[in-house]
């Protein structure tokens, strides 16, 4: 059990008198994309805040690379190999693309300064759009471009796990398609991903495993290839409309896994 890259055990936390997570547990295995789904307000983003360290857990444990990081600071977790793509992208609007990427490499530069140039060139290779606009102010880019920058920034510290919070929110379908391809490529590089998403189809296409959260607890968990479309539909409360697309997605995944 403790050979998973990231694990949340029995997390209970909230704000003030509001408990948002009740006994929340999920995990990300090495090399996989784990998707956390659920309706608005279910607690998905709150659980990511606990993973990042931005919100303390009242009880429960967070394990990363075999170590208990429940009490570790946000910055220390990043130094240990956790990269982030925050909700709303949160790029540094008044700084250029290159400056954003440089900031992403802050912990890398402190560890191994000489690797920075190489890593930057790598990122520019994989994201030619960022290379083109490296002196452009991040705030002037479109949502999709900022999403790409946020992913690039998260990768600059060469993390083992990339934690991504609702990346497709506010993006046009074209941008979402590009984002999907970007993340697919990132996954191909061997980076494990923890993804929280509202867009069900997006998650199902990208994830290997899915965890469904409802009112602060995981109510369903399983490999996408073996999904029970009915169960998911009920938990997400979406009904007939989604059923068709869900069935298609799972069948595709199962076929890909099988072949």
């Amino acid at each position: 059990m403790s050979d998973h890259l990231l694990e949340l055990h029995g997390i209970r936390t909230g704000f003030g008198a509001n408990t948002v997570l009740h006994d929340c547990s999920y995990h990300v295995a090495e090399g996989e994309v784990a998707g956390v789904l659920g309706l608005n307000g279910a607690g998905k983003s709150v659980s990511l805040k606990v993973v990042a360290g931005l919100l303390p857990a009242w009880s429960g444990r967070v394990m990363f690379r075999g170590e208990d990081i429940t009490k570790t600071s946000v910055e220390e977790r990043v130094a240990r190999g956790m990269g982030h793509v925050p909700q709303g992208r949160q790029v540094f609007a008044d700084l250029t693309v290159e400056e954003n990427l440089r900031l992403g490499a802050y912990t890398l530069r402190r560890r191994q300064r000489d690797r920075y140039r190489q890593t930057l060139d790598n990122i520019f290779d994989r994201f030619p759009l960022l290379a083109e606009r490296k002196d452009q102010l991040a705030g002037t880019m479109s949502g999709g471009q900022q999403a790409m920058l946020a992913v690039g920034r998260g990768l600059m510290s060469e993390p083992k796990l990339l934690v991504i919070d609702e990346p497709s929110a506010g993006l046009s379908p074209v941008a979402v398609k590009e984002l999907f391809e970007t993340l697919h490529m990132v996954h191909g590089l061997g980076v494990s991903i923890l993804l929280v998403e509202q867009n069900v189809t997006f998650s199902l296409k990208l994830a290997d495993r899915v965890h469904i959260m409802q009112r602060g607890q995981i109510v369903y968990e399983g490999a996408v290839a073996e999904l029970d479309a009915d169960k998911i539909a009920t938990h997400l409360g979406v009904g007939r409309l989604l059923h068709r697309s869900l069935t298609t997605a799972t069948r595709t995944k199962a076929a890909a896994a099988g072949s």
Partner: protein
Amino acid sequence: MSVQELGGWPYEGYGINLRVTKRKVFAAVALAAAASAPPLLFRGTTLLPGHLALSIAGGVCIALMAMSLNILLGYAGQISLGHGAFLGVGAFASGLLTINLYMPFFVGLLGAALVGAIFALVLGVPALRLRGLYLAITTIAFAFMMEESWFRWEPLTGGSAGLELPRPRVGAFVFFQHADYLALVLVLLVGYWLFDQNITRTKIGRAFNAIRWDERVAQGFGVPVASYKILAFVLSGALAAVAGATYGHLIGFINSESFAYKAQPNFSLLLVIIIAIGGLGSRAGVVIAAIVYALIPRFLEFLQGWELIVGAVALIDVMARHPGGIAGAVRERGTKRGERKARSEVDPVDDDDDLPKLPRLPRPMGLPARPELDAGAPLLEVEGVSVTFGGVKAVDDAAVTVRRGQIVGLIGPNGAGKTTLFNAISGFVTPDAGSARFMGTELIGRSPHIRARLGIGRTFQQIGLTKDLSVQENFLLAQHIAADYPVAKGLFLTPGAEGVERTMRGRATAAIEALGFERFTTTPVRNLSHGQQRLVELGCVLVTAPELLLLDEPSAGMAPAAVESLGERLREIRDELDRTVLLIEHHIPLVLDVCDYIYVLNFGKILAHGTTDEIARKPEVIGAYFGEEVA
């Protein structure tokens, strides 16, 4: 109280009104007499030596000053860090009137109030556009300017030679003795206290608090924010000027440096400190803090020169540990218990899956008559609306028609422009082009708060309530447009105003009971769960029986079963209450279940619209929502 009675106005006839007025005046006078009795009784005795009376009187004057700032800063949330300007203005005005024009004391005070109000108006108008720190620094600059220019102008203020303000006199009796003046000042304190109470018990205080919390929420409930902000400035300025004058006559001598930033004490900062320590918005806390401040030096005499250092360290410490001041610390003890309870619970606290029925209330009196429209006639007609933010077209030539008696849904992915369109209709955002007509009246270009009066109610994604007010106070705030009495009558809490308030309270109680939230009547809204807050918000929006409801993602944060219940309530609003709804929603099944007509929005454009059946069959709807490629 039956529902029918709530719609009417409790007419009581003139006779009873006079009696009520007489009773109130009598009570006020009795209170004033009680307050002024102790100093008069003890004057000249060893219990109240002259210098002690002077100190206490000074403290009461500072309490008056602090209460004036509290109205602006604590209630209305407008940061004024230069209140010394108004104190000085009042003191000098009263000085000039009493010295040069030989006017009696109370005329001096009235003159001070008038001049204070005028200067407050001068500051308040530009202040309308400023927020937060920009406003704060502007007020400091204003105070500084007053200090360096007007206060130093010799013909007006006597410059550094200053003015000697006389004590008041009644016939042959002069208020020389500090104890006598103390009695006078205590009477003023009673007056200020009652005035302040009237503010907090009427629509004025509620409007101020709403403005402080979130101007949009205030606008949504029909509060004309700009006017009330000016009102807050004017009231605060006038009361501060009177307080400054009172202080001046107590001390007897004021000059150009008395109210300066370099003065000891720096009144502008002192008042802010006192309010912060007493607790922002707390009448009692502020008065206590002021009087303690005035008396503390006596107890610290043994410190011999270290008082200022100890005081400064104590101030820093208090602010660091109790940001809410005295009042906040008292409140904290109550909430801490609640938090501990939440943490120790084993099972999740269940929101009621079944939403209680929404309140059904008739239209309040005193609102403009609305034309009767047939079912199906267009209620809201939006045409050609475009909104551009920094080069990006957030809404592009949108056209929406909402017919009476329908529930119309506006769907689309995140960032499609739905909320921006709502904001354009609500008046929070001015579109570059287009029109939005509600029952024939054009909305675009007009101030947001008129919508409530016209009959449009709106909810917000983040819950449009003043979250640190109680449930009841929010229901009262929501009836702002039905609070049919002028501000002046509210300030003096005339029987007429009280009658209207009673009606509003009755309506609020009925609504709270309908929701089953009696136990939450006095609970601050922020202590409720998200689902409960959403319900209170819906109740508040319905309490003035608007024709059209604009609902912004009402199902956000609700469990699936509760969403189904919400659907039932929405149908109730349409069928039983005979209202019209335009809603933004992400929850497709809810939309398909409840809406009669749907508009699909993406990239700011209306992609498709039609009846629910038509839309459910269109593939681009599914694609736009779920992010699949359009077939």
